């Protein structure tokens, strides 16, 4: 009997609850009250409108290179809306929706793209990590934070994000390997937006799905329609409940699409067709959720109008706060590096201060 099949306990489901036409599955539909649904819609809308505003600000030269999030709002809001404040989130670099829900100010979010370290100053009391620029380098942190929760015997969970491109990195593999072995309370969300700059998902891996990679790490995996906020919510809730119960990590592949460019520094026309983008625009997560909410009687023209006005006002205030706090002290690059500051840095700081003074640069504010 030289060959026999090894039974591997794995099944990869695709979960979709609310389709692009607004039709939904009443058996799978999560039970969320009107206020909760409204809040989710509002946060998705705020994420969308802030994104549009930041893209404009980049074009006007008011911030630097920007990585738009258009089309991915459902992945972000659906996955974190039910977390406790003591739970943690770990973002990659395209998760402003997560930050908005978790209590980051719009000012802080813009600061990162404006070139200020202040944009990574995680607000006190908020258990999130800031933007991680090197792709997937944040994945082992998800494992490490969740591991800390396990060691400290808390029933909290850590949810973290990476993209489809990130799944090719060693950090993704190593982070999930450790998470599986030590059964930590982590939820890994892959925002599969189909494109890693110019490389399509099919050139990232020959695997049929990204969710199936979970099997290699000994954890459950599921693929969800990432433009369906109800499916993202339901899949994440299952994974979070399992993590809280001590049953270990989950990998969620959220199938979505980056409707805009990777960052404002590239032109997607160079690597993908307009037809493809148009196809995905029809699957936009916001209009379909709106249809659902109207059908549920949660939303009507008047509430949409009010929400739009409310969101516009919030963004206006955030941008004003950002633009009224642009002054920064170049000298403070020395001030946060160490708890115990080495003598050589004290000397270098003094040297830099003298340079700035000679050059008439204002410091100490």
């Amino acid at each position, binding site marked *: 009997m030289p060959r026999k099949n090894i039974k591997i306990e794995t099944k990869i489901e695709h979960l979709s609850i609310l389709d692009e036409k607004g039709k939904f599955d009443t058996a799978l539909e999560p039970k969320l009250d009107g206020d909760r649904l409204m809040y989710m819609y509002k946060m998705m809308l705020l994420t969308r409108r802030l994104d549009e505003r930041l893209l404009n600000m980049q074009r006007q030269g008011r911030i630097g290179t920007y990585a738009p999030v258009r089309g991915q709002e459902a992945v972000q809001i659906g996955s974190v809306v039910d977390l406790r404040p003591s739970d943690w989130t770990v973002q990659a670099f395209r998760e402003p929706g997560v930050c908005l829900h978790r209590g980051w100010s719009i000012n802080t979010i813009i600061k990162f793209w404006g070139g200020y370290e202040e944009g990574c100053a995680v607000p006190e009391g908020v258990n999130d990590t800031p933007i991680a620029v090197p792709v997937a380098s944040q994945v082992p942190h998800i494992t*490490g934070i969740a591991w800390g929760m396990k060691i400290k015997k808390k029933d909290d969970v850590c949810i973290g994000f990476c993209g489809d491109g990130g799944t090719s990195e060693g*950090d993704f593999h190593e982070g999930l390997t450790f998470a599986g072995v030590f059964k930590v309370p982590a939820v890994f969300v892959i925002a599969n937006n189909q494109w890693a700059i110019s490389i399509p998902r099919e050139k990232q891996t020959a695997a049929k799905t990204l969710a199936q990679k979970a099997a290699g790490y000994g954890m459950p995996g599921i693929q969800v329609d990432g433009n369906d906020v109800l499916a993202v919510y339901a899949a994440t809730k299952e994974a979070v409940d399992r993590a809280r119960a001590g049953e270990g990590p989950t990998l969620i592949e959220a199938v979505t699409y980056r409707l805009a460019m990777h960052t404002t520094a590239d032109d997607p026309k160079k690597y993908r067709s307009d037809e493809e983008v148009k196809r995905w625009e029809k699957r936009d997560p916001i209009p379909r959720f709106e249809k659902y909410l109207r059908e549920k009687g949660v939303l009507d023209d008047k509430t949409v109008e009010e929400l739009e006005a409310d969101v516009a006002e919030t963004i206006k205030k955030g941008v004003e706060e950002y633009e009224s706090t642009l002054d920064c002290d170049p000298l403070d690059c020395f001030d946060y590096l160490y*708890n115990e500051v080495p003598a050589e840095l004290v000397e270098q700081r003094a040297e830099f201060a003298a340079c700035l003074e000679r050059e008439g640069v204002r410091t100490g504010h």
Partner: protein
Amino acid sequence: MAQLNMVKAINQALREAMLEDENVVQMGEDIGQDEGVFRVTEGLLKEFGEERVIDTPLAEGAIAGCAVGMALYGLKPVCEMQFSGFAYQAYHQIEGHMSRYRNRTRGRFNMAMVIRMPFGGGIRAIEHHSESREALYAHNPGLKMVIPSGPRNARALLIESIRTLDPVIFFEPKAMYRAFREEVPDEIETMPIGKSQVVREGSDITLITYGAMVRPTVEAAEDLADEDGVSAEVVDLLTVSPLDTETIAASVSKTGRAVVVHEGPRTCGVGAEVTARLVENAFFHLEAPIRRITGYDVHFPYFAREQAFLPNADRIKHAARETLAV
């Protein structure tokens, strides 16, 4: 007082640190059941259990990366890289996150973590087991780079490295692991990071070194006294970042001559920085060019050639004599 070798002294420090702070966890390859390939973590799994003494899968990047996550959560991870030659997979996390997180988040998160690794030649090991790449970490802002030379300072510096809220790379000169025993006090003793030590006083020349090179350097100093009547001062750096400019500049201001000794490659090595600091801070006291006795700018040879390659007391003496003859 117990007579301990460096392995035992480091083991004692790890145990003491775990006893005094429940947030301290150890992680690494083969550190639990096997008690470390050099037995540095002997007895720790049995005493503290597998939740705090963690045998990890074989992936240096995740050891460092998960430790960053743990440090974010408030634990104090102490990681072992089995050999410094395998730490490059972790360097991505060390440079990208461990060294940056405090600065990046404007002080919101500390990186109170230590990465220990055996480094240096002299144990007849295969490729990738003998290099000295301390300059790589010393060049990296946001880290502290500590290198003990003997059992007593290894124990004291490791306790301090684990206590401090800043991230520390702790290089253990593996040739010294079992080279000699030393009295190590029973009660906890610490030494400040960033402070070098004059281990032999002298007035004619300063020999500056660290790690496994301290022993041949002291031997050279004693030979110089016996054979030439020369009084050589020896400075053990103990920390290569931040560098203790004050101690080396004071010594060379007194002696007027200096030889810097290390195993690692010469170009952009620690000796280059030491030399620059001396030129900046003791130039008018210098009576001769500063010499460097170091590894050459080549890859560390396989072990059939390593004893020929490693700096030794004879070469240090020879350089000192040439410096004194100027």
